[in-house]
């Protein structure tokens, strides 16, 4: 009799342990994931001091802006656009197209990822701490602008995702495009764009405006004006964000049209 209860208890206990074990692993994995990049930065900058005149907290500000805007964009767009080739192949996209709602909105809402939430908190905290350590206190007007900048930066990131994954409508394996034109180019953003060849800055400002994700908006808050043709650039992020997102949206529609016209 007791043997039976004992057996049940043991199973329940072990299941809990396994569940806890999984949970624990997940926490450690996430912690390592977001912190390793940041830890490496801290280690390097602690040893070498300022890079191109930018100190640790200024570079952390760049990093946090990038991570935060990427996480916001990723929450809404990664689920849909990251898996676009698969959606097309499995026919799921066709299902979405039959719905009475705008397909993009449907895609965003149904494919929201919760995996980025820890990033928001960490990146947000990093922005707060860095600004504090740099002795910057934000007026109300500046705080509003910060929020607008993050929103704009997120739109630029989202547009980047979209534009580099939408070619899946035409080409089978387009992930090389995504990796090169989005991932590789945004890795330039870890450091101030002034350390690179002028051509890179031109590319990241006028052709693929990733520079507006962090390099230009951050300078507004730390009173710098490097590598900018005009001070106006520090304020352009929200507008650039809206503009490129609009273009990405048009591109998306073009892709949908091409897809639907070749359908069976």
């Amino acid at each position, binding site marked *: 009799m007791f043997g039976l209860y004992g057996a049940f208890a043991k199973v329940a206990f072990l299941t809990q342990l396994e569940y806890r074990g999984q949970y624990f692993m997940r926490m450690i*994995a*996430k912690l*390592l994931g977001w912190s390793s990049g940041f830890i490496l930065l801290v280690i390097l900058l602690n040893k*070498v001091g300022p890079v*191109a005149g930018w100190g640790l907290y200024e570079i952390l500000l760049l990093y946090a802006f990038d991570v935060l805007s990427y996480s916001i964009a990723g929450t809404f767009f990664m689920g849909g656009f990251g898996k676009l080739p698969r959606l097309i192949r499995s026919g799921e996209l066709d299902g979405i197209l039959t719905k009475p709602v705008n397909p993009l909105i449907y895609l965003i809402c149904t494919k929201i990822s919760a995996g980025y939430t820890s990033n928001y908190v960490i990146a947000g905290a990093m922005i707060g701490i860095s600004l504090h350590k740099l002795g910057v206190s934000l007026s109300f007007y500046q705080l509003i602008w910060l929020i607008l900048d993050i929103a704009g930066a997120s739109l630029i990131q989202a547009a980047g995702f979209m534009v580099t994954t939408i070619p899946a409508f035409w080409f089978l394996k387009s992930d090389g495009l995504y*990796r090169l034109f989005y991932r590789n180019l945004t890795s330039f953003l870890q450091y101030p764009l002034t350390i690179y060849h002028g051509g890179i800055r031109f590319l990241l400002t006028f052709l693929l405006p990733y520079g507006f994700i962090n390099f230009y908006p951050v300078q507004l808050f730390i009173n710098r004006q490097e590598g900018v043709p005009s001070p106006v650039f520090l304020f352009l992020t929200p507008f650039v964000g809206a503009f490129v997102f609009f273009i990405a949206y048009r591109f998306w529609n073009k892709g949908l049209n091409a897809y639907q016209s070749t359908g069976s």
Partner: protein
Amino acid sequence: MYWVLIKCCFRQQFQYKWNLLFQMAGDWLGIYIKICIWQAILNAGSIKSINFETLVSYSVIAALVSGLLYSRVAEELADRFRTGMIAIDFIRPISLKWYYFFGQLGENLYHVLFEGIFIAAVSFIIWKLPIPGAGTVLVFLVSLFLGLLIMFFIQYTIGLLVFWMKDGTYTRMIADGLFLLFSGIDIPLWFYPEWLKTLCDFLPFSYVAFKPVSIWLGMQEAQQWQKILLIQLSWVLILFMAERLLWKQIQSSVEIQGG
């Protein structure tokens, strides 16, 4: 009809070439970024003990090592576990492990030889990087191979944990994170504070990337290359035994469930 087929296959091949090109360009950019960072750091003047050529060589060789380390073994193990194919592997006479190791190595070598060596050669020419003597290169290759073995064992053992974890994604992420932090693949360990560097010496990760690369560079570390090779061998043995132990555990527990 055949024309459509031809067009289709050509398009596929064409895309494949483009993907290759994109990959190369991407790797190039990665190295370029690192080099600009080193340049900016050296310009700031606070680091006097290391010169530009050393830093660039480090980044280029580390990138090559990184290319050779790519392994999907953890995912493959998780897949086989999920689909139940793993049952066959218990009765197979061939060792699953070596099958994966050499298979992955072959695949990586293909990439590295075509793409990696090309990029490395160009980098070496552009920045006039010094190439070590034949003896050093030999020791480097041995050390590199041992390092690859170490990393493979780590990944394989992590992969085996799927038997308890049921889902291998997190264990993989943890291993990757630890590797990034402690192996010196991104930032050479000279930049690490003393206490962290000591910690790294006790972990196997630095023996996968940092130590072999420092042999190539002929750094002070490398004067003790015999010691490095010895430690690598011991890590290989330790990890090998750990894996065997885990495998035995798995076999016995699976048997109990069987029947």
